[in-house]
């Protein structure tokens, strides 16, 4: 219990620090792009939207820094991240909310598949080291070193342009409205298949290699020999003794990659014009849409934190030693 309280305190502090930095950053920006924008669009923005933008970007020069800071927190708790300049002054929260599910859905599923499949393959070829299964290693290394954008473009060229099996861009057919129908779900899968496939192929090699190397280290441990000497079935030795220990370091990398889902798939979303958070961030940057950028940064920071919490919890469940070290 002590362990969890300690970790909770640590994460609360980190979250506070990240949010506070997010508060100070725009205040340190040179010039005042936000005021200029507000000036230009006078009358088109509601007074309360202006208020929240003023708070977010520190334009209330008549208020003390502390008051601004308190106002800022109040805004965050009410879920108000200001208005996006480039998306027709829609609330930033809504804009992000419309992009996040696409990214999380597609990249999340791809990451999970890649982790599970890669770890399983890595465990198997580590177990069978020296056999023909080792032939997978150079192939895996090759695919993990290929630049992603190149692989994405090749995939489009082959499966979309030449063969016409899958659409080359967007999350669903143009002109359709998102709805919970079977037809729409089919479209989503069809559109998501190539991006997901390329993401899986691009990251699979890393999981395979990481797991294989850990397996080889773990297989030399005495407890694996003991398990064999006990006459346990090979499948049991592989799963309960070797792979369980070998997968612990994989788990932290997995949590880290979950944390990068939101911010880290820019290239994929560009190559496939996928309407996710990465593309949104790029759009925001080119349009100098500061409220949207700030909102996205906040969301990205928080996802990385949440992923780390998940990793910690998983580690504590799977490795009893972590619990004790803190006790």
């Amino acid at each position: 219990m002590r362990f969890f309280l300690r970790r909770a305190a640590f994460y609360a502090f980190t979250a506070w620090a990240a949010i506070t930095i997010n508060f100070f950053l725009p205040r340190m920006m040179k010039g005042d792009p936000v005021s200029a924008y507000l000036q230009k669009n006078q009358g088109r923005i509601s007074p309360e939207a202006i208020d929240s933008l003023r708070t977010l970007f520190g334009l209330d020069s008549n208020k003390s820094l502390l008051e601004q800071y308190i106002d800022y927190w109040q805004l965050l708790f009410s879920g108000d991240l200001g208005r996006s300049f480039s998306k027709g002054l829609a609330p930033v929260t809504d804009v992000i909310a419309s992009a996040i599910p696409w990214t999380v859905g597609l990249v999340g599923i791809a990451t999970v598949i890649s982790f599970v499949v890669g770890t399983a393959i890595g465990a198997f070829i580590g177990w069978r080291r020296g056999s023909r299964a080792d032939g997978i290693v150079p192939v895996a290394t090759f695919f993990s070193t290929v630049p992603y954008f190149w692989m994405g473009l090749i995939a489009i060229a082959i499966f979309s342009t030449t063969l016409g099996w899958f659409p080359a861009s967007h999350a669903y057919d143009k002109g359709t409205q998102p709805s919970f129908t079977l037809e729409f779900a089919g479209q989503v899968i069809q559109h998501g298949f190539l991006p997901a496939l390329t993401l899986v192929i691009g990251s699979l090699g890393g999981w395979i290699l990481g797991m294989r190397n850990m397996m080889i280290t773990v297989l030399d441990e005495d407890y694996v020999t003991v398990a064999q000497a006990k006459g346990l079935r090979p499948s049991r030795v592989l799963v309960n003794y070797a792979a369980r220990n070998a997968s612990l370091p994989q788990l932290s990398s997995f949590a880290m990659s979950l944390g990068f889902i939101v911010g880290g798939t820019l290239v994929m979303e560009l190559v496939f014009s996928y309407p996710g958070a990465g593309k949104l961030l790029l759009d925001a940057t080119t349009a100098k849409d500061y409220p949207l950028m700030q909102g996205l940064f906040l969301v990205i920071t928080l996802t990385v934190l949440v992923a780390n919490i998940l990793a910690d919890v998983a580690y504590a469940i799977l490795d009893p030693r972590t619990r004790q070290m803190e006790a």
Partner: protein
Amino acid sequence: MTTDDLLTVSQFSVSYDVTPPVEAVRNVSLTVRRGEILGLAGESGCGKTTLAYGIQRLLKPPAVITSGSAVFHDESGEDFDINTMDEIQMRAFRWEKASMVFQGAMNALNPIITIGAQLQDVFSTHRPAMTRTERRLESGRLLDLVGVGSNRLRSYPHELSGGMRQRVMIAMALALKPQLMIMDEPTTALDVLVQREIIEQISELRAEFGFSVIFITHDLPLLLEISDRIAVMRDGRIVEIDTARKLYENPTHDYTRRLLASFPSLTGERGGFVRRPGEPALDEEAGSIR
């Protein structure tokens, strides 16, 4: 071959198939008698551990058994030739007939599952008819027997001291009442007081259950005290095998003498120690075999 013999190893050789090949065990022949403690003494790289693993067919590539046989004479009268059993027979043989104890303070126990689970999977593998409750009760009984206590079933290895972990290993080795226990440096990592307790426990259990022990260590003084017979290994060969007393009082091989002289006597004369300053040192250091 009498019924007193439990294990007959003949002309046993193991090579490490690297370039150039390393012969780790060369034509070793020895017999383990029913109920005896056979000491296997030697320095690092002499092949004593490789021999023990070979007998259990636990060697991993690149190690290969190149010749010889190891035959286990079961108390039922049946003989098991370790080299000719298939994988499934071998798995059934392991632990049931011959179990192992490793350097327990190190990492012979899986760090992430409870010691109870590690004891119980012996039963779920070899005694599939036992119910979950029976397995748990039996594991608890074993822990009580070695003085760890059945309340420790849910403990993880890191929650126990080195001596406790070694007792858990011994409990595990006892689980199926095997006829042979192979102990590889079981007390090397332990403090001398704990070592003494463990050694006493092993002799008590042996008196109670009558299993044979192959006790592997570089600690010759310890072996001399606990073994019935001792085999001294060097460079993959057994250079001398005899009863502990004879080996101590009348060693015939030079290497045995040298090994004995390496341990100054605790309460006796200085022996080889600092008695002859200026004499050229024996420069022939044992090369290690990878």
